[in-house]
Every structure is written in structure tokens, then in C-alpha cells.
């Protein structure tokens, strides 16, 4: 057997790489969702100082390349603060922040999409601002946001491939390693691409299923 041929161990490698990519994707998605939603709620309550600060932060994160943010965290932070940042930590921080910024934007527009009239009637019936957010705005905003959110997450999944640049052994990095060993780029990158594709499809399917459930109140003919 020549070193360029594929072995069954390569499947394990690919699975490991996929596992790392997925773990990073899921973790940063959860953190991003949490952060982005909290930021949007802070904006909803118009908290002084914090809300404008968050708006600026989100602007910065949205409008600069993820790769540059990644380099800033991985190379810039250690230089500035004299601390050690591992590749995985840098990836977690960067991707979470980036996802949070986009989720913040989606959440803000979702909250603003809810008709004023409903909010007014809920307030008149004595519901607090929090109860209005919880019972009137959140369920409808979620139904509104799930479409853009699914699109975002499918994109963020692909963005995780950037972290291979700073040495995280994710699916793309494994592809790189296999490619260098086997010298069969077309096969390796087709397989890696197919794995990303399958995962993205899974995310999209999950989003569509959730959307159907959240939109149950408008899911009939003529609407």
C-alpha cells in the first residue's frame, strides 16, 4: 500500500474533524444566540449607555471580515494583554461574537416587526413590559426570525472553516492534511464539501421544521 492511498483510518480522521467543526459550530451558536438575544433585549428596554455601546459593537463585528477578527483575537489579544490564547479559545471567542452580532440584528428586527397595536392592548390589560416581551413579542418574533436565523446558521457553519487557518483541527484542516498526504485534491475536497453540505442541509431542515411549528397560527389556506 502506498502512502497516497486512502485507509479506513481516514474515515476516523474525517469524523473527528467533522466533530470538531460541529462542536465549535454548536457552542458558538448557543453562545451567540444567548448574547445576541440579551443585546436585543437590552435595546428593547433602551438601557442607557449599554444599548448604544452594543449597537457600535455589533456594527464593528458585522462589517469586518471574520478572518481579520480571528487574527485580532489570536495574535492581537495576546500581544496586547500579555495572555495566552489557544486556537480553540480564539475560534470560540471570534465565532461567538460574530454570530451574536448577526443574531442581534435579526432579533432587533424581529422584535420591531410585532405590531404596536398588540403591544398597546397587552399594556392596557396590565401586562408588564417583561410579560409583553415574554408572551406577545417573543413567540411571534421567533416565528419571524427563524427564517433569517436558519440562513445565518447555515452560513456560520461554513465560516467555521476559517479557523483551520490558526491551526484548529476541524474538518477543513483534516481535508488539508489528507490532501497533502494522498495528493488527490479532487476526491478529498469533494468529500469534505459533501460533509459540510450534509450538515448544512440538516441545519436547514431543523430550521424549516421549527418554523412550521412556530407559524402554526397562520398555517392554513388563504393566508
Amino acid at each position, binding site marked *: 500500500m502506498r502512502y497516497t492511498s486512502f485507509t479506513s483510518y481516514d474515515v476516523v480522521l474525517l469524523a473527528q474533524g467533522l466533530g470538531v467543526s460541529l462542536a465549535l459550530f454548536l457552542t458558538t451558536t448557543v453562545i451567540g444566540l444567548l448574547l445576541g438575544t440579551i443585546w436585543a433585549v437590552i435595546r428593547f428596554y433602551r438601557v442607557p449607555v449599554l444599548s448604544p455601546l452594543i449597537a457600535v459593537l455589533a456594527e464593528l463585528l458585522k462589517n469586518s471580515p471574520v478572518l481579520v477578527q480571528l487574527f485580532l483575537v489570536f495574535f492581537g489579544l495576546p500581544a496586547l494583554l500579555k495572555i495566552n490564547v489557544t486556537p480553540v479559545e480564539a475560534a470560540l471567542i471570534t465565532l461567538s461574537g460574530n454570530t451574536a452580532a448577526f443574531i442581534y440584528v435579526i432579533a432587533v428586527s424581529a422584535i420591531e416587526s410585532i405590531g404596536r*397595536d*398588540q403591544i*398597546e*392592548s*397587552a*399594556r*392596557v*390589560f*396590565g*401586562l408588564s413590559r417583561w*410579560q409583553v416581551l415574554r*408572551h*406577545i413579542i417573543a*413567540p*411571534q418574533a421567533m*416565528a419571524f426570525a427563524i427564517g433569517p436565523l436558519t440562513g445565518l446558521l447555515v452560513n456560520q457553519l461554513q465560516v467555521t472553516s476559517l479557523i483551520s487557518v490558526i491551526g484548529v483541527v476541524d474538518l477543513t484542516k483534516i481535508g488539508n492534511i489528507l490532501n497533502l498526504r494522498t495528493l488527490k485534491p479532487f476526491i478529498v475536497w469533494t468529500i469534505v464539501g459533501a460533509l459540510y453540505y450534509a450538515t448544512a442541509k440538516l441545519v436547514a431542515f431543523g430550521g424549516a421544521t421549527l418554523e412550521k411549528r412556530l407559524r402554526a*397560527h*397562520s398555517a*392554513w389556506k388563504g*393566508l
Partner: protein
Amino acid sequence: MIRARGVRKSFGSAAVLDGIDLDVHGSEVVSILGSSGSGKSTLIRCMNGLEKLDAGSITIDDFDVSLPKDLAEARKRSATVFQLFNLYPHMTALQNVTLAPIQVLKRSRAEAEATARSLLDSVGLGARADAYPAQLSGGQRQRVGICRALAMNPRYLLLDEITSALDPEMTAEVLSILAQLAKTGTTMVFVTHEIEFARTISSRIVFLDKGQLVVDLPTEEFFAAEGGMARPRISQFLSKMRKD
């Protein structure tokens, strides 16, 4: 009682309410008439705290609606029915009616649902309790809106042109419910264009013109030839409304 004193409200340079004094006592049905833009709806929106007063005061059972800590109590005692229903579209008719009793009055779900079902039954919507607003006709939606208000067991019912978005048939179904309510002694402030109906259920008629309260008379007197009708502005308004 609901007491308004010297209420002023303007939007930009336009004075919508220009010094309103009004008392509504328990078990009264007070209809507020006036042409569009006379400030009727704004007056209701000031009563339930949706608009801030520029000057003057409104109290509901001595709770001042411009004080945040009083407003909550004032809102518990009054309930509003809106022109465009303002139902929560993601909730069924039943959930629309039970939300505030459960969240604000802290009723148990079972208790709130039992009350809601009997209210929906009483307006002929017992079978539609699990329908979403978009599955209901306009008249049915407004009947849900009325149930939602009644579920709060309010002392005062504020009705803001509740039939203006409905066709005559649906208007009739909604008004018949109000007629029953009036008989039970529910206090109502009724902003409306339904002159004839206002005449049958009201104990008093108030006429607004350009943000001022120009007439406040018992219903009989308002429609009497020597009473409100003696005023050119009112007879002109009434003859115009009746022609439409």
C-alpha cells in the same frame, strides 16, 4: 368613577384635546359623539394611559393614570375594546381572553379558562374558542375583543369605535352584546358613530368638537328639539350622520 379635569393633549402643533372635563359615574353608559378628529379616541387613549396628558388629570376611582404606580391599578379597574380589535394573532380566541387574567390577576389557568369559555359561549363563540384570530370574521374577532375585556371583570369598559371596522351585519352582532351589557349595569364609555344605538343604550351623551366638550347632556335632552338639537353644530352633525 372616572374623572377628567382640564385634559389637554396635542400632537405637534395640533391641539387634539383642549381642556376636557368629564365625570363618568358607576353604572352609567356615556356615549362620546363627534366628527372624526374631534378627539374622541384620544380621550379614551388618555383614560387608559396610552397617551400622556400634556396638562390636566384623569383619575379612575381616584387612581391617577399619569402616575406609574397608580396606572397599574387604574388599568385593572378598566378594560378597553379597540377599533381594530388588537387581538394577539399567535393565540387562540381562548388564549386571547385568558392571558391577562392569568398573568395580571394571577388566576389559575383552569379558573381563567372556565370564565373565558362561559364568556365566549355568551357571545355565541363557544365553538370557536380554539380558533386563531385570522380564522375568525371581523365581527367574531370583535366579540373576542369584548370577552377579553370582560374577563378582567372591569368596573369600567372603554369602547373605542368598536364597530367602525365592521360591516352593518357584523356591527349588529357586536352591538347586541353591548345592549345586554348595558342592562347588567356595566359602566361604559362608548366612543361611537352609531348614533341611533348610542341613543338606545346611553344614559348620557357627550359631544366633542375640535377637542372641546361642547355638550354633556342626559340622552333624552340631547336628542330633544329644545336640548342638544337646538345647537346648530349638533343638529348639523346628527343630520349628516343619519344621511350616511
